[in-house]
């Protein structure tokens, strides 16, 4: 999938300035890999069955959600166990705009991102005073509360209460001879790629360095003149906006939203996906998204008696084999390859 190409692109971006020729060559290889990955992903739309495309569409959505969580937790060190709430906010924003106001899907996306970003900004404030475990619990309580808030009588006319809302996935434009599943897959892929690019751009620049500095040593970062409060709340808002957009993508893929779709398990699942992919890794989020969709099915195919136990065993095995998540092994592989290249 696109994990390795993006990972290697990141590595080439971080390469030292002392070897311009080698760096240029690496960049070219990374670009070629990225292009090949994109070609494979686009070709999949025509080679895979509608059901497999649906699964990949879901995985792309979850990957973006994990990316949002990764900004906050991986890069900025603020543990969030409540990103399912932002996912739900985005999903419901899109669903409500599409069912009650007949908005087209694409038009709801910016609103979904803004709405969940605003929610994230608001949640970011307590995050200033609460660190570590306390922040984890605060966000966790948000995740617990969301399904029940969605059922509340005051907003039931909008949210559909327990019944939830049905939405229809967008039809492909008339001039394209493709099915709705293919169209949605390609759209989701394009949007996810843009969001990944934006996030990658963010973390490798000045703001990304500030985020990491605050994570690693807040006192030193403050002494250097960084505005901790601003960076933290804005990171939270950006992460929430990404996860909200993911929620919008997921909602239209499933064509249904209901409070039971966004239980606290969703937040935990996103967290698991982030750790499996690798905290503070852009490419790792892709692996995390694939993990969320495919590993439970794998666990079930091994044993129907206790799929949860199998899932747990798989998870432990994975963390044992890949302590740094998928990104850890990716970085190791890239580093080895470069070294061999350099020695030649």
């Amino acid at each position: 999938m696109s994990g390795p190409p993006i990972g290697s692109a990141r590595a080439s971006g971080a390469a030292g300035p002392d070897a311009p020729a080698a760096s240029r060559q690496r960049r070219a290889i990374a670009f070629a890999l990225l292009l090949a990955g994109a070609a494979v992903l686009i070709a999949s739309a025509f080679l895979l069955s509608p059901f497999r495309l649906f699964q990949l569409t879901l995985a792309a959505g979850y990957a973006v959600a994990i990316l949002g969580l990764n900004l906050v937790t991986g890069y900025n060190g603020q543990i969030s166990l409540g990103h399912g709430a932002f996912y739900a906010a985005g999903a419901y924003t899109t669903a409500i705009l599409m069912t009650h106001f007949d908005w087209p899907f694409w038009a709801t996306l910016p609103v979904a991102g803004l709405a969940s970003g605003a929610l994230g900004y608001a949640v970011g404030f307590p995050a200033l005073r609460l660190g570590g475990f306390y922040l984890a619990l605060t966000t966790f309580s948000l995740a617990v509360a969301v399904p029940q808030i969605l059922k509340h009588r005051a907003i039931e006319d909008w949210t559909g209460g327990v019944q939830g809302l049905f939405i229809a996935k967008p039809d492909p434009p008339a001039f394209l001879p493709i099915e709705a599943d293919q169209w949605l897959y390609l759209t989701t892929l394009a949007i996810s790629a843009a969001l990944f690019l934006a996030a990658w751009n963010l973390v490798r620049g000045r703001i990304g360095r500030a985020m990491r500095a605050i994570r690693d040593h807040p006192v030193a970062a403050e002494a250097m003149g960084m505005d901790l409060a601003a960076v933290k709340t804005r990171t939270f808002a950006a992460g929430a906006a990404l996860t909200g957009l993911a929620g919008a993508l997921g909602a239209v893929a499933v064509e249904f939203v209901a409070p039971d779709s966004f239980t606290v398990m969703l937040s935990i699942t996103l967290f698991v996906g982030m750790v499996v992919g690798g905290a503070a890794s852009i490419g790792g989020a892709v692996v995390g998204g694939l993990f969320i969709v495919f590993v439970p099915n794998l666990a079930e195919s091994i044993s129907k008696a206790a799929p949860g136990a199998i899932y747990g065993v798989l998870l432990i095995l994975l963390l044992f084999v890949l302590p740094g998540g998928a990104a850890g092994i990716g970085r190791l592989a890239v580093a080895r390859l470069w070294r061999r290249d350099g020695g030649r």
Partner: protein
Amino acid sequence: MPNRRSLIAAAAGVAAAPLSPWRRAEARSTTPGVTATEIRIGNTNAYSGPASAYAVISRCHAAFFRMVNEQGGIGGRQIVFLSYDDGYSPPRAVEQVRRLVEQDGVAFLFNTLGTPSNSAIVRYVNQRRVPHLFVASGADKWGDYRQTPWTIGWQPSYRTEAQVYAKHMLDRNPDARLALLYQNDDFGKDYIAGVRDVLGDRFDRVVRAASHEVTDATVDSQVISLQASGADALLTATTPKFAAQAIRKVHDIGWRPLHFLTSVSVSVASVMQPAGPEKGIGIITAAYNKDPTDPAWDNDPGMNEWRAFMRRHMPGADTTDINYVYAYGVALTLMQVLRQCGTDFSRQNIMRQATGLRDLEIPTLLPGIRINTAPDNYHPIRQMQLQRWDGTTWRRFGEVIEGTRV
């Protein structure tokens, strides 16, 4: 190193080549999942997650269809029963049902578990016209033959149950006034609808309703305000924790109404014991399955048939679990549908036969209960028998009562 142009060319070549997997499935005119030798049935259940206690239902189905296959199958065909885990999560239910319908090509879905999961898939299966038979959920909406003609329930819906209580209340005292404590969701509101079905215009005069949220800490204040309304009957339509609270509070404030309790919250271990077994004496609920722990059925031929099945095909399973009785009953109902299909296993005919059951008797249902369906009746079981708590167990009494037809 490959250059950019060659890569693009390769990508374009791959992209343009085969469009075939998309068209192949549509080309066949026969029913998906039905061949000369087999018939494929799809199912989802919560094998993992909070509702995994219900997974025994699908395990029981798998054993049941193995037995059917050993006995020669149905219409000369072997049954292939595919059941996947949805973890009680609506998005995963959509994923697994799409896998069953599109990937595995099942002929129809059978006894998919849970109100949230079925709500997520009901539109998809109706758009695709896939029979969605005998949904494992007590919500009344599965009987909506106009909106969702490919979906049909099985067990008495909560609304039917409420009709039974309201009928019994009026039998006892035509001038009774009813207090209704309900959980503010689909489940609770089905009870309001059922009581309204029976009372009609009198509803507003006779009924005083109070709701609570699942998030509430207690229902004490609701119980007190309902007592103050002067009602002499009470229907408690809420989940186990709140039911136990309500039973205790009603007793402690000295209120002695004719107390009906939803069949969802009749567990001895999680409701009656915590409430205090003596505080619930006289409470009435309704049942439709034979309870495997009830000594009255020790020598019952119907339950002996079920026990023989359990011994042979599910050795080691907990035979006090009523979910196995439920599963056996619903699987027998499906077998009747498939027998009625004869040789025509088209989706239309499967649906026609599922909605054409006449006075079907199932050995695990209480005596007198018969399954009836019609193109305008998607509620297979409409009858229940009342039972009363005597401080240690539930005792059935009276005749089977039929819900009203709406």
